[in-house]
């Protein structure tokens, strides 16, 4: 029989992602949730946390200046590594 602490520390994310839990573990979690309103609320909050993270892409990209300068550098590098047109003449 698992308790609230085990659920919160070990099983919660796997449960809401539906990953990694054996049938036995899944049933243990489900049964605990049936009888524990605190953990029901906790799991609901964890699901919301997961959604919030997933829906808010936080990565700031490089600024326009950096994008341009890197793009140009990459193009130069590629050109210098390809056989030059002049060689073909």
């Amino acid at each position, binding site marked *: 029989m698992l*308790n*609230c*602490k*085990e659920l*919160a*520390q070990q099983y*919660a*994310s*796997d449960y809401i*992602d539906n*990953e*990694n839990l054996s049938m036995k573990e899944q049933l243990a979690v489900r049964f605990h949730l049936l009888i524990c*309103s*605190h*953990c029901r*609320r*906790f799991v609901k*909050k*964890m699901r*919301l*946390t*997961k*959604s*919030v*993270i*997933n*829906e*808010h*892409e*936080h*990565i*700031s*990209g*490089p600024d326009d200046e*950096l*994008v*341009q300068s*890197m*793009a*140009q*550098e*990459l*193009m130069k*590098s*590629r*050109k210098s*590594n390809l056989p030059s047109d002049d060689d073909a003449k």
Partner: protein
Amino acid sequence: MENHSDIWNDQRLLAGLKADYQLAYEALVRQYHGPMMLVAASMVDAGQAEECVQEALISAINNLSAFEGRSTVKTWLFSIVANQARMKLRKVKREVYLEDITDGGSFSDELFKSNGHWSQAPSRWDDNSPEALLSYDDFRNCLDKTINHLPDLQKAVITLREYQGIEIEEVCNILDITASNIRVLIHRARAKVYAMIDHYEETGTC
């Protein structure tokens, strides 16, 4: 910030890169520089991470013909930059990096009584949906701050798995950690965000 309607898919990107189309190179940098930085920064410091990303991008565009479409462009790029970072990763740093997985926790023991029950009922949140929470500017700032302050490896895992949707096995290869490490790291990252939301709901601040 990014204009999401300008996302180039693999086909369009590769065609543009091979044709030396400047906008394709800009799209490559704009779309992948950020996530690649997070992957590299999970292993080496920020300065070295920038070097790794640049080297990886140069290596990629000079080996476009080697990319045979067996994976996606993003997985390919993440693998290249991870390899670059691993080469720079000193032995000592590697041990510290692995410790990050084994130490620390998610929800602290203090939250629970000795019999394993919650010491206090988890608080109620007024906001019930991600849309509601994400509609507040100050909440989004708090979320940015929280995620930016996550340990590097947690940030990298969240980026690859939750944002980029990369399969667990690929994430394992890219970051050189196990599937169970990944599960632990995701859980810890979520626990930090959960704690931030608890605080925000209670006080309106981060």
